[in-house]
């Protein structure tokens, strides 16, 4: 796994990262621009997502039809998403079409048409996505959990709010894009079959003369925390539990990662074993480590029938609290094996690498090679993870439930 990663910072602040994987036929790219929903004005929640939706409706010399047609002809398997920190445009295709695809996305970032006559269509699409979440209880509970746990604006959902989406005009979208679509703070990750010198020149031609923008500021307000129940007419009760963890840039990040892996990596992990396998309480239960730039959190989920929801919550919280008693070597050995094989298998997916490169740069100001990550995993031991757990025991839980009735959340949880 000794593959070099190339990086370059253009004078306007744009960062390009590339990992050649010349045994593949494909190439993948990820553009991150600092247009996260944390920058949405409070009264226009969802503005960044709205802007992203509009940016795909024609750019440069292509109208919206030609834009989609050209990407289709290039076979680009594309996706877009908005997080609190970024809007991400990514895609993968056969390697010979990479340059042409990058040129189209350079237009999206710099020369989107933002056609006013398509604003209503775009608004309808946004509102439908918001309505669709109401039908997805498992997704809804995790959106609410994040909102409760993280301080505003970091707990926001990028999808926004109905009233704000209804009030948004093209005069809101255009300045948002002017402000947040800019090279300083933007990162391009490319991986797969590629030629670095050519890529460096191409991205320089496409984005090198993009003018930088002024700094973006964010004002924070405290998280709500504690317990919230959302009434929902459903068969199952959805349970979300959150607690603090260190962020990706923290020296102890992989200790936190290891601890969550013992809880929820593979089917022999604690939550799956204790909640599902031993007791048959639910079909789906997991915990995942989420990271922002300067803080992180573990988000746990379980969905179960209403009559067994209390027991599921109690057993899950019990497992979280038990972590402080420490993990064992055999648990860590399995986790290491899983991570190692996942790292090796990343070499089979250009899209996994292109997004990792961009994400690494945002958090660390550099990208880690697979070899380096492998070394960090080797360095984990039950002793180091237990030391982390002693210092950061799962506690101060934020709990959100969604279902027919609220649950008893034990004292001392919040």
């Amino acid at each position: 796994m000794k593959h070099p990663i190339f990086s370059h910072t253009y004078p306007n602040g744009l960062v390009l990262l590339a990992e050649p994987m010349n045994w593949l036929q494909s190439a993948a790219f990820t553009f991150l621009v600092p247009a996260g929903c944390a920058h949405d004005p409070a009264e226009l929640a969802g503005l960044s997502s709205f802007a992203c939706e509009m940016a795909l409706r024609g750019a440069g010399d292509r109208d919206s039809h030609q834009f989609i047609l050209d990407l289709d002809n290039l076979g680009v398997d594309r996706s877009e998403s908005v997080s609190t920190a970024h809007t991400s445009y990514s895609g993968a295709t056969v390697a010979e079409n990479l340059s042409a695809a990058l040129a189209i996305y350079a237009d999206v970032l710099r020369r989107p048409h933002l056609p006013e006559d398509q604003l209503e269509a775009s608004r309808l699409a946004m509102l439908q996505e918001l309505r669709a979440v109401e039908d997805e209880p498992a997704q809804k509970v995790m959106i609410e959990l994040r909102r409760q746990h993280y301080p505003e604006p970091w707990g926001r959902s990028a999808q926004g709010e109905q009233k704000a989406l209804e009030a948004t005009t093209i005069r809101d979208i255009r300045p948002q894009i002017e402000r947040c679509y800019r090279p300083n703070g933007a990162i391009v990750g490319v991986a797969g079959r590629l030629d670095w010198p050519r890529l460096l020149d191409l991205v320089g031609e496409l984005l090198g003369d993009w003018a930088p923008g002024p700094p973006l500021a964010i004002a924070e307000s405290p998280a709500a925390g504690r317990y919230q129940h959302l009434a929902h007419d459903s068969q199952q009760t959805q349970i979300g539990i959150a607690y603090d963890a260190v962020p990706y840039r923290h020296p102890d990040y992989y200790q936190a990662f290891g601890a969550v892996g013992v809880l929820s990596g593979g089917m022999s992990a604690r939550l799956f074993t204790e909640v599902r396998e031993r007791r048959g309480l639910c079909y789906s239960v997991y915990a995942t480590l989420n990271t922002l730039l300067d803080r992180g959190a573990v988000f746990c989920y379980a969905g179960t029938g209403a009559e067994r929801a209390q027991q599921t919550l109690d057993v899950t919280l019990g497992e979280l609290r038990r972590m402080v008693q420490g993990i064992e070597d055999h648990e860590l050995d399995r986790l290491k094996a899983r991570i190692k094989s996942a790292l090796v298998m990343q070499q089979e997916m250009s899209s996994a690498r292109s997004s990792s490169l961009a994400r690494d740069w945002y958090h660390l100001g550099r990208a880690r090679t697979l070899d380096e990550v492998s070394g960090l995993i080797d360095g984990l031991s039950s002793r180091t993870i237990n030391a982390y757990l002693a210092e950061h025991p799962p506690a101060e839980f934020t709990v959100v439930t969604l279902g027919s009735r609220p649950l008893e959340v034990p004292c001392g949880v919040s």
Partner: protein
Amino acid sequence: MEFLKYALPNGLEVVAECNGAAYSSAMGFFVKTGSRDEIAALAGVSHFLEHMVFKGTARRSADDVNREFDEMGAHYNAYTNEENTVFYAAVLPEYQDRAVDLLADILRPALREDDFHTEKKVILEEIQMYEDQPPFGADDKCRALYYGAHPLGQSVLGTAESIAALSAAAMRDYFRRRYSPGNIVLAAAGCVDFDALVAVAERCCGDWQPEVTSRKIEPVAASDGFRVLRKEKASQQYVLQLAAGPAAEDADRYAAKLLTMVLGDDSGSRLYWELVDPGLAETAVMSHGEHQGAGLLMTYMSCEPQQVADNLRRIHKLFCQVEADGITAAELEPAKSKIRSRIVLSSERPRGRMFNLGNDWVYRREYRPVEADMEAIAAVSVDELVAVLAKYPLSRPTMVTIGPLAEVPQPDE
């Protein structure tokens, strides 16, 4: 890239695409049994049995099974559909023997009574989970309506009632009849040592007793019914349409896949421009599903309830139009580009190849290298798509809609 195959004396077949340069190996046991092989009293048994396979064997407890997969760092899982139950793992090449040994061992599960009752609760949770999320079970209802009494109309999950009533003894009997070596294919792809693969299969599966298994392939007499199901608390309205399409063994299945791409891919298709781009629908997509002796052209749409009647008229009109006027070469080319690029991306992972290899063998007993699929896609003409449309019209589908509305007008009335 080399294709190799071998058959054990008891009938179990081993097929592999070996690529010494791959980073990982993927292997899967394809058991040719699913919901279409169940009688009504056993509805859901194939899927329930898939869960039970992970609950331990004569020499392993359930914990051992999960622990050993995780010790290898395996990425493993299983799924059940109408026709197959598939157990698979992707591992680093050095774990090939251990992974095959473990997969083979769990295919002779202990099926212990107490595990059966614990796992029954998990299955009932899974059924409840699907009832709470779109399309709220309407997919099962639409298939049942389309197929009528044909076994392909049976639900993979079964119902809360059929699962509650199922006994461990009935499952054991089903297992004995269906998990016969002659009804199983072991497929492997990636960095595979074929001799070692066969040796482990011989050692672990050689003593499996063959049983006579069969599957009735009856003709489908599809209905073109229309049902409105009410789910008052839903926010959106969901629509499923099913029409006949090429079966797994039909040569025109490639044309059918391109047709659904032209008409209903999630981007750039006719349905996309008609419904999704203008914001009239949240989703409007088509796909082609292939079974033994039957195929489906499927359409799925979700939108705001008050928009559904208009959207259904638009879909109906679009289908009538395409049946009358056909499609153009300018539409076919981007569809081909998209499929070719998706084939390249999925084939870069051994597990992607393993699924193709296994399904090609289970359905057609043929090996198709990536290049063969690429050439088959490239060779499809506009006329072939038009021929598929003539043979399998889309404008009179079986349809189910579910959501807050009590009534939805049928679009061609």
